[in-house]
């Protein structure tokens, strides 16, 4: 590996340096666009005491949910956590600290973290439990609360395609939090379905420029579907 080539050869190498009690920012919405092999590697590695920042926490046996049985997650910052029995048990018993954060605020916290903005005002959550302990300020007659940016020791990201320089393209709604997570990791690790040579991706179509990406690996994905909703075939 040399120059701008970000490709690593194993998942072990991809997550080298991830240690107990670190903060990991994860892309994904539900099970869509999650770095499923990187999550599996964290499970295998047995890293503990993690603070995980992610919109959701997977389901019992897939996604970030697989880190729960061995108590690898100490604290989670998420907007919605309702699909997971073990999660609920650990939350109710106090084993797992949960910081419920509005979805748009969570996205903006990651964006700000990656963009060098330490905090921002938002009307979201004013006058609700989310505002507790936060600075409030009025602009043009509207009330806002101050929300702080989030940075991670690691960010784990799933993209569709990349070139070896780490320029990324996402696919459909699997994009979600991934481009934001990618900017907010001290070490950003990305797994993709396909890696091509530099120059093969159209520069106008790149969603995440390679400057944000530290390590890149190609994987195979189960892409589990959470709610399989269909309509009858048109010609049925």
């Amino acid at each position, binding site marked *: 590996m040399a120059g701008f080539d970000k490709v690593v050869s194993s998942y072990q190498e991809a997550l080298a340096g991830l240690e107990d009690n670190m903060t990991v920012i994860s892309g994904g*919405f*539900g*099970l*869509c*666009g999650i770095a499923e092999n990187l999550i599996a590697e964290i499970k295998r590695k047995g890293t503990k005491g993690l603070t995980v920042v992610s*919109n959701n926490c997977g389901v019992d046996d897939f996604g970030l949910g697989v880190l729960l049985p061995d108590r690898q997650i100490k604290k989670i910052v*998420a*907007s*919605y*956590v*309702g699909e997971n029995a073990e999660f*609920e048990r650990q*939350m109710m018993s106090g084993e797992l600290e*949960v910081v*419920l954060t*509005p*979805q*748009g*605020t*969570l*996205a*903006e916290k*990651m*964006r700000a973290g990656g963009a060098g903005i330490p905090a921002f005002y*938002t*009307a*979201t*959550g*004013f*006058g*609700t*439990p*989310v505002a507790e302990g936060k600075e409030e300020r009025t602009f043009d007659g509207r*009330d806002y609360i101050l929300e702080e940016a989030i940075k991670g020791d690691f960010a784990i990201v799933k993209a*569709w395609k990349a070139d070896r320089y780490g320029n990324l393209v*996402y*696919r*459909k*709604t*699997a*994009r*979600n*939090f*991934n*481009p*934001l997570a990618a900017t907010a990791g001290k070490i950003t690790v990305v797994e993709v379905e396909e890696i091509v040579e530099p120059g093969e991706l159209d520069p106008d179509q790149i*969603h995440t420029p390679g400057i944000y990406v530290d390590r890149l690996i190609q994987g195979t994905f189960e*892409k*589990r*579907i*959470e*709610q*399989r*909703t*269909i*309509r*009858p*075939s*048109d010609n049925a």
Partner: protein
Amino acid sequence: MALTREQIAMRVAQELQDGYYVNLGIGIPTLVANYVPDGMEVMLQSENGLLGMGQFPTEEEIDADLINAGKQTVTMATGASVFDSAESFAMIRGGHVDLTVLGAFEVDVNGNIASYMIPGKLIKGMGGAMDLVAGADNIIVTMTHASKHGVSKLLNNCSLPLTGKGCIKRVLTDLAFIEIKEGKFHLIERAPGVSVEEIIKLTEGELVIPAHVPEMTF
């Protein structure tokens, strides 16, 4: 008769306008998409990063990379766009969405809404609801007027943790269409066959009744 879920959705659909960008919450609000009037174009925003949500896919069309905010597999309508979560909430917080429809456990006379948590019972999180109520000007809350035991959900003060403060102006229940202004509920329409007295009985917060309260028509 109290409105059915479908009738609530049909009544909300009457508030749609051609060219509207609309965010529909999970549950009854989602049904509104089934009643878009003929010849009208609306585009549905799904806060996980899709503008122009289409119908459910056929078995052959299913794509794990294409879901809505309820995590259901969907398709894209013609002219759709996809984007990241920060962009999605920039649209929402920035007031670019023309109409937001979402459910609630409680609303009160000051336009407060509680919809995301029942302490000790239901702690799943607010998802995008706090951003939606804080960012949108034009919101319709759909909910049942009272619990099965006849306890009003239209209150003087919300008892549950708030999703948003002072942000709700219109509520459509199974019994009535209500506006909230100047610290009071105002009865605008009633469900067919539901009496004003019945609505008064099931509304805890102060309710202003005009001389004539029309029945909803579908």
